[in-house]
């Protein structure tokens, strides 16, 4: 029993990441509002943070800042943190670009429903 629980805990961040990815995609596919669609994309984006966080974490390790701990103390992987850190700020500006696109799409199509974007209709 405890074997199964520890196996579940070992995989938990990856399982949550997979779930958020698929749920976010579901929100995008079924969305009826462009702004709702963009916020679902943010949720898809956060699934990568969970994945990176799970990869870089070490049990019992400290944060990778050696200002007040001696060098050589076990610390978590700083590379994954650097990846997430830049991505969070860049993601905010990319989302601003998407919101600007949504405003202009509403201007052209007269509706915020992605179904009503006539130019996109195949």
């Amino acid at each position, binding site marked *: 029993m405890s074997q199964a629980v520890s196996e579940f*805990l070992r995989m*938990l*961040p990856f399982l*949550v990441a997979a*779930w*958020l990815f698929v*749920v*976010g995609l*579901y*929100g995008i596919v079924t969305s*009826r*509002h462009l*702004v*709702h669609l*963009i*916020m*679902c994309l*943010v*949720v898809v984006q*956060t699934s990568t*943070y*969970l994945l990176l*966080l799970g990869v870089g*974490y070490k049990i019992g*390790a*400290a*944060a*990778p*800042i050696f200002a007040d701990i001696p060098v050589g103390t076990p*610390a*978590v992987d700083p590379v994954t*943190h650097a990846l*997430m*850190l830049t991505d*969070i*700020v860049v*993601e*905010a500006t990319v*989302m*601003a670009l998407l*919101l600007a696109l*949504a*405003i202009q799409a*509403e*201007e052209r199509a*007269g509706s*915020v429903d992605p179904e009503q974007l006539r130019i996109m209709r195949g």
Partner: protein
Amino acid sequence: MIVLQAGILLFVGVIGTAVVFTRNPLNQVIGLTFYGLLMALMFFIFQAPDVAFSQIVIGAVVLPLMVLLTLAKLKVKEQRRK
């Protein structure tokens, strides 16, 4: 520690799902702000203070501001059409 980590991961999963299934964008942006702060808490618990730092400001200030301004603009345009 492991209980705290498992708890925050499950909480993030549940709130993320709730954000997707909130269909009204105005309600959803409140959920998204809460979700962003929850992510920041998760980064702290997983020993990533640098990441938590930028997530707090982006998730609590920049994203809600942009979304709310967009919704205000869309509402003005909708009123004009009537």
